[in-house]
């Protein structure tokens, strides 16, 4: 743990420290919101609509009001004057349709699970009992569930007042933007050229439930000068601001606290209806109030993720060079807009071109309202969808051309020496080395050996067929340069804040606006500060998640905490040192210009005279002896606004076995080599990769939020929503290459979403690869055993599939049948 990096002097950077927060988080002996108990606290229960679309004909609350322990019952009508409108922070287009979103529905319900009444009682059990006594009569209205139907003329409307089910249409066109060619011309040219081809596919991103471990919970204390809200949220700062807006009160009257939070994956990025309702009732009662959702309520009414239909058109030369890419999306908003609901597909818009040099590109997204719970950010938000589509298309193209899919990718990807590279979307990828990550992955995977085995299994029509899937991904994360967000009409910036307080004893308190909900910030940030200030790791305390401690911040999502928040900490630490230097010089009776700082010690150049940072902290506190004209403080803060996104990348290789008798898919081998730049804590980074892989693999194989024709979510418990556990996961072989980011002083890139973004297409490409002998070229997610089994029923097995001759004769045969396999040798930049 104490090995010193000879070149940088860093003691902590790169050490796989175990997370210091784990003992309390794992045992639960910590401040989860639901653990908080305040004197005289009341408890809430919600009455939720079982119908997906209808008007409330009547609500009878008489029995509920007289139920034991009940302190009050409020319907939407009772709260409507003061509940305001839950905000959406991203008006993606000037003419975007934005329905009002009440915390408690009044008169009209628009998805099953929407709150229609709130009960307060002395205990949670009494509140629940009373909720069962509220009698609501609904007049059913037609339900809109299917996106293709929703946009048709004459379809009933989710929001009558908007006059349409289309929320917004958003377009990026590289021709118009001047960042590339015109895609329609590229596609037309390919159609006309016998040496080119055009392929078109439609993929479906099913709805997913973020399924964070800790259900959402909120405690509100309305007593005192400030309203205090504890909530299981990823975004205490954003929520504080939004709550002030919704209630029309001063921001300074709201204190928002995210205590320890058990997961989020994007699912806790919001100011929720439940939070607002809890605040309103607490204010009415004038006493503390708690609301904790049940797991089923969480699955039903916390936002979902994904749910897009992607029509992709790709043109290429028959030598494999991609010439154009066109994306037509339908994205399901659900019934309302949350914090960034309409922007989620747009976060993917810039990533369909991925790691490839695609000369012409167009992205068009139609956002659609349906009578389902809203969608919003879920791990990766837009980028998993984009990565899935392009990586599926690259495999499809390779198959059409009969070339090795890795070789095809290399033909199109940005070469190491071409960085920095401006993409067809106008983003500048600062660094990357796709050759190195791919070489390492191929080596760890035994690509050639598995291709050989695949060919053998095909040849003997083995009941277990093998498929190999590839995903060479990149993503944009580290949200985000504020000016870029401004240009996209996002309602806030993307900077992060930090402050460092040097205590008299030499201990260090670090404030950060990036509030962790399971990521391990306290450990990683402590390691950074220990190196920057040369203090022991144990002496650093990370404070976060309370708007009265860290007054500003933009919270945690989009793999931003390290690459934005961590850099803000570095900047604050640099200021601490600069402030300490004159005091150290004074103590050492030397010139400031002669003071050097290294490993926690200020010394006079060329002498052995020195004073430690702890000694400076104590002397500054005592303030008996410090230079004239400066303040006796070495505390400092910094706000860091990144100039660029972060572009982690990697190569993921997956081998799946398909039991052709049952259709069951088993992951035989999963290798990923990620490049997240330099790594602060390899153990934490690997944990992020593992968790990310699990969620991405789960989308491929198991998870789907399903509704019946009346709009009822039929997967509202973990019996039906088949969330995998560790028992379902293969052993992952993970490794890293380190191509330092050139956009920040630490050289780091984001890792929080990488595994999720990369893995889904790797798995599905492998499943499809195994099924090719049956002529199958696509399959819908999740690829349950039944779906795979049904797909091959009645189809001929052709072991020679893929061996079809390719047109230009440069490739003799397809992968698995003797085609040249990617070896990485010809790629100069490898390793």
């Amino acid at each position: 743990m104490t090995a010193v990096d000879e070149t940088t002097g860093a003691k902590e950077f790169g050490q796989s420290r175990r997370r210091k927060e784990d003992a309390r988080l794992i045992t639960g002996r910590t401040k989860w919101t639901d653990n908080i108990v305040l004197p005289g606290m009341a408890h809430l229960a919600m009455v939720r609509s079982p119908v997906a679309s209808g008007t409330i004909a009547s609500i009878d609350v008489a029995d509920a009001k007289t139920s034991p322990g009940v302190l009050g019952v409020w319907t939407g009508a009772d709260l409507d004057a003061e509940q305001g409108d839950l905000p959406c922070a991203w008006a993606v287009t000037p003419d975007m349709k934005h329905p009002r979103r009440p915390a408690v529905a009044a008169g009209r319900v628009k998805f099953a699970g929407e709150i229609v009444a709130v009960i307060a009682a002395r205990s949670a059990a009494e509140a629940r009992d009373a909720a069962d006594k509220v009698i609501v009569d609904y007049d059913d209205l037609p339900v809109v569930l299917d996106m293709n139907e929703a946009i048709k003329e004459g379809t009933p409307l989710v929001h009558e007042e908007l006059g349409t089910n289309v929320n917004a249409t958003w377009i990026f066109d590289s021709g118009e933007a001047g960042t590339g060619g015109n895609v329609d011309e590229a596609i037309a040219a390919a159609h006309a050229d016998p040496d080119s081809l055009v392929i078109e596919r439609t993929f479906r991103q099913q709805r997913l439930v973020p399924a964070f471990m800790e259900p959402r919970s909120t405690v509100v204390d309305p007593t005192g000068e400030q309203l205090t809200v504890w909530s299981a949220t990823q975004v205490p700062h954003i929520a504080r601001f939004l709550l002030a807006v919704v209630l029309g009160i001063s921001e300074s009257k709201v204190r928002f606290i995210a205590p320890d939070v058990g997961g989020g994956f994007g699912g806790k990025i919001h100011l929720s209806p439940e939070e607002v309702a809890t605040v309103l009732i607490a204010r009415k009662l004038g006493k503390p109030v708690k609301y904790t959702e049940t797991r089923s309520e969480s699955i039903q009414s916390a936002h979902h993720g994904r749910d897009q239909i992607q029509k992709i058109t790709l043109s290429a030369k028959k030598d494999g060079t991609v010439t154009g890419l066109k994306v037509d999306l339908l994205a399901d908003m659900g019934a309302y807009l949350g914090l960034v609901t309409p922007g989620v597909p747009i976060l993917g818009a810039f990533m369909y071109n991925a790691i490839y040099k695609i000369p012409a590109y167009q992205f068009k997204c139609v956002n659609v309202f349906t009578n389902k719970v809203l969608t919003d950010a879920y791990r990766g938000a837009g980028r998993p969808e984009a990565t899935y589509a392009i990586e599926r298309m690259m495999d499809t193209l390779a198959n059409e051309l009969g070339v090795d899919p890795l070789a095809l990718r290399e033909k199109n990807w940005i070469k190491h020496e071409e960085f920095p590279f401006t993409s067809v979307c106008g983003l500048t990828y600062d660094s990357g080395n796709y050759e190195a990550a791919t070489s390492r992955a191929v080596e760890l995977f035994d690509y050639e050996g598995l291709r050989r085995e695949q060919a053998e299994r095909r040849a003997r029509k083995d009941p277990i067929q093998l498929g190999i899937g590839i995903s060479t991904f990149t993503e944009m994360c580290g949200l985000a340069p504020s000016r870029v967000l401004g240009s996209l009409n996002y309602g806030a910036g993307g900077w992060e804040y930090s402050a460092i307080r040097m205590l008299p004893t030499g201990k260090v308190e670090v404030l950060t606006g990036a509030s962790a909900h399971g990521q391990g910030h306290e450990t990683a940030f402590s390691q950074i500060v220990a190196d920057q200030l040369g203090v022991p790791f144990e002496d650093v305390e990370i404070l976060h998640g309370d708007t009265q401690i860290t007054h500003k911040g933009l919270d945690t999502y989009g793999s931003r905490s390290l690459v934005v928040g961590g850099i803000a900490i570095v900047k604050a630490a640099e200021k601490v040192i600069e402030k300490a230097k004159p005091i150290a010089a004074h103590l050492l009776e030397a010139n400031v210009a002669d003071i050097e700082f290294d490993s926690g010690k200020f010394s006079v150049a060329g002498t052995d005279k020195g004073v430690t940072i702890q000694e400076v902290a104590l002397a500054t506190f005592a303030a008996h002896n410090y230079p004239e004209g400066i303040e006796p403080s070495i505390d400092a803060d910094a706000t860091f606004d990144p100039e660029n996104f972060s572009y982690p990348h990697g190569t993921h290789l997956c081998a799946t076995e398909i039991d052709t008798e049952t259709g069951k898919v088993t992951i035989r081998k999963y290798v990923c080599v990620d490049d997240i730049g330099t790594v602060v804590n390899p153990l934490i980074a690997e944990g992020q990769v593992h968790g990310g892989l699990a969620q991405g693999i789960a989308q491929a194989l198991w998870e789907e939020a399903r509704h019946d024709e009346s709009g009822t979510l039929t997967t509202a418990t973990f019996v039906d929503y088949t969330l995998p556990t560790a028992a379902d996961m293969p052993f992952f072989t993970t490794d890293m290459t380190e191509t330092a980011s050139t956009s920040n002083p630490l050289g780091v890139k984001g890792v929080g979403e990488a595994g999720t973004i990369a893995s889904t297409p790797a798995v599905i490409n492998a499943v499809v690869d195994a099924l090719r002998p049956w002529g199958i070229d696509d399959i819908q997610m999740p690829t349950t055993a039944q779906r795979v089994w049904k797909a091959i029923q009645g189809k001929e097995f052709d072991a020679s599939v893929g061996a079809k001759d390719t047109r230009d004769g440069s490739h003799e045969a397809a992968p698995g049948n003797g085609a040249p396999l990617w070896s990485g040798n010809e790629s100069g930049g490898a390793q």
Partner: protein
Amino acid sequence: MIPAAFDYESPASVDEALAVIAGAGDREVKVLAGGQSLIPVLRLRMNAPDLVVDLGRIAELRGVRDDGDAIAIGAMTTHDDVTREPLIRQHALLLSLAAQTVADPQVRHRGTFGGSLAHADPAADMPAPALALGAEFVIAGPSGRRTVGASDFFTDLFTTAIGEGELLVEVRVPKHTGWGAHYEKFNHVAHTWSIVGVAAAVRVEGGTIAEAKVGLTNMGLVPIRATAVEQALVGQPATADAIRAAAQNADQGTNPMSDASADEDYRRHLAKVLTGRAVLAAVG
């Protein structure tokens, strides 16, 4: 979620429990064993009994004893104990293997053998093996004890021969010492219920199948004995081909549902494939 309020009793003996239940009169009573099915039902408020009688303190309901040509398993023996008990492993290995596939370790440490059988969920893993091995169910009531054979115990969806005011106290399982056994469970993810499960116990003599018992999970409203397969197996060589051929009869007499986890035709197909695998694994 929070269950509706109920009264709670935890008697220390079977007789006391029966008396408490009898004394409840018109009030709705629910018996609590491991609570792994009942508590979720109460929490989702799909049921709201007035009185819950907890069997957890009744020592006589827990454990396994040798009962001559059978072993007797107390209703409150946990799934985890069923996987480990030497008497069960020796004489009714099939039960141990099936119990190992139930949910996860937490559920197996709480959930009970008797609770699973009394609950009679068509997707539960313990009923089919119990049926296959010809278990007898000892039911205690106000007027004494009676024994019900396996074929009469599971009467309908979530319904058994246990009557109002009665308790399942013990399950007698005829000894199948030396039989090969296997439980083949097919599900989506590891902690979920069976889409289809096949329980097989086989006695092989000199390479020939002398006796075979096969039970099917989730191929109808109640667990089903695959008698056509059993008959087809007897006298066959214990080879993969012979076994697979016999397994083609696995869906005879079944009535599988189409539901969110699988369609009927797929279940019928699975039953055949999994029966072949279960029997093949059982013969070793």
